[in-house]
């Protein structure tokens, strides 16, 4: 096997996303700036201006238009990318469903930020959790390095299963934090991705087709059923692509979820994205004290890898599920509700509670991480607790 040349670069999360986009060299990028994701397309537009990519960059007047332009270009067979955050993703909402239902493999570099009101520019997951049922594959990354590689993998995943993918990084914490990213050579990335082979092309006038016609009660359900099946098939594709990527380029990225010190764990924490870093530190401290606690970092939220979670949690007695968003439904956050539902059929029926934390960029210190582990320990020991707790909020 020939040696894989990796370059170690100091990049922020946004720079890592933009650099991956430069190497991917998409045919079309249509985007509108929004804090904290602005830099992604700002840096990328410089690549366009400097002639480092062949991309047609469409500067639009809103995110709704950005996603609309992406849909049009993708339906015409182009490899298409965009970037956004928070209110921008919310404004795209209508078009997100159209992109996924038309089975267009658009890749979106997303930076997680709280939704208004009150207006806030800092990290939480309420933006992408708001699009969780839009039919997009969602990959939540822990750090800039994982974000860079996941964005490249996302293009492969999207174009294999013909579904759009959003890859997310935590706003400011990762998007503006500088760290070491191991980048691949541009030639290697371009050779790995090859050219897109579209499922259909609306500009192929020799084989005319109609895209997006009215679909009444007699056919709409069948088309939705196809989309559900595509999302089911996406699980195998995600596994195949990430496993192959690891083998090809000598990496060890988790596929659906990362298991940390779970081997003999009696109780566990489930968390997504950057907070996993702090939580791993807390798990290490508790392990030092002889506590049998482990951590699962959920990476792929759509499709929801319930089989993987059932396997990981089959031997634990208690689980604390952490949500950086709340469903405002009086029973906790979206991750909690889906994890609890996934584990309902386990014979062991572990006790589960929810910790909502970090809303609007509220800091998540080690003391809070240790508090959560201790609460789950109490849950394991049979103490009766409210099933949702808000950690880090002032009473």
């Amino acid at each position, binding site marked *: 096997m020939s040696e894989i040349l990796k370059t170690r670069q100091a990049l922020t999360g946004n720079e890592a996303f933009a650099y991956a986009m430069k190497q991917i060299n998409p045919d079309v990028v249509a985007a509108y700036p929004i804090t904290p994701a602005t830099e992604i397309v700002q840096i990328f537009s410089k690549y366009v201006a400097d002639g480092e990519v062949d991309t047609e960059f469409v500067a639009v007047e809103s995110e709704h238009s950005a996603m609309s332009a992406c849909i049009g270009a993708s339906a015409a067979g182009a490899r298409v990318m965009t970037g956004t955050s928070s209110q921008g993703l919310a404004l795209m909402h209508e078009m997100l469903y159209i992109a996924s*239902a038309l089975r267009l493999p658009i890749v979106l570099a997303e930076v997680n930020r709280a939704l208004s009101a009150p207006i806030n520019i800092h990290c939480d997951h309420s933006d992408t959790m708001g699009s969780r049922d839009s039919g997009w594959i969602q990959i939540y990354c822990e750090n800039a390095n994982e974000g860079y590689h996941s964005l490249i993998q996302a293009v492969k995943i999207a174009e294999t299963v013909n579904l759009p993918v959003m890859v997310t990084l935590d706003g400011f914490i990762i998007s503006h934090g500088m760290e070491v990213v191991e980048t691949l050579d541009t030639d290697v990335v371009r050779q790995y991705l090859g050219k897109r082979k579209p499922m259909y092309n609306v500009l192929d006038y020799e084989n005319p087709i109609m895209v997006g016609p009215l679909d009444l009660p007699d056919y709409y359900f*069948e*088309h939705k059923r196809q989309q559900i099946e595509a999302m089911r098939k996406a699980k195998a594709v995600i596994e195949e692509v990430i496993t192959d990527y690891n083998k090809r380029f000598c990496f060890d990225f988790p596929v659906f979820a990362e298991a940390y010190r779970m081997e003999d764990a009696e109780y566990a924490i489930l968390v997504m994205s950057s907070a996993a870093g702090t939580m791993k530190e807390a798990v290490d401290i508790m392990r030092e004290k002889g506590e049998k606690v482990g951590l699962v970092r959920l990476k792929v939220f759509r499709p929801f890898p319930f089989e993987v979670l059932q396997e990981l949690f089959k031997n634990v007695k208690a689980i604390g599920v952490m949500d950086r968003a709340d469903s405002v439904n009086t029973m906790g956050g979206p991750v909690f509700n889906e994890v609890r539902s996934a584990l309902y059929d386990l014979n062991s029926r572990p006790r589960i509670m929810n910790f909502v934390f970090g809303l609007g960029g509220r800091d998540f210190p080690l003391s809070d991480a240790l508090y959560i582990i201790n609460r789950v320990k109490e849950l394991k020991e049979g103490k009766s607790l409210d099933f949702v707790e808000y950690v880090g909020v002032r009473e």
Partner: protein
Amino acid sequence: MKKKGWKELPEGGIIKNVPTSQELKTGSWRTQKPVWDPNKCTNCFLCWLYCPDSAIILKEVNGEPKVSGINYDYCKGCGVCAEVCPPKVKAIHMEKEEL
């Protein structure tokens, strides 16, 4: 016409081999149907002119166009043909559609 299941349809809601509007037999929408009497018809073509679905069939007889019937695959039973047929002719009348 038997409708296709989700495994048989093109994915993404696209329609191949366009145009396909002729494949959609809209005649099933009808609650009343026009009945044409060839013995009364004077071939004035008013029904042919007014029909919004081009469902009045014309055929060439001895080099001349003649009304020859109604295409029930597309006729939605609006009744405009019966309405415009001259009162003295009354070659088209509406009947209840048997479902």
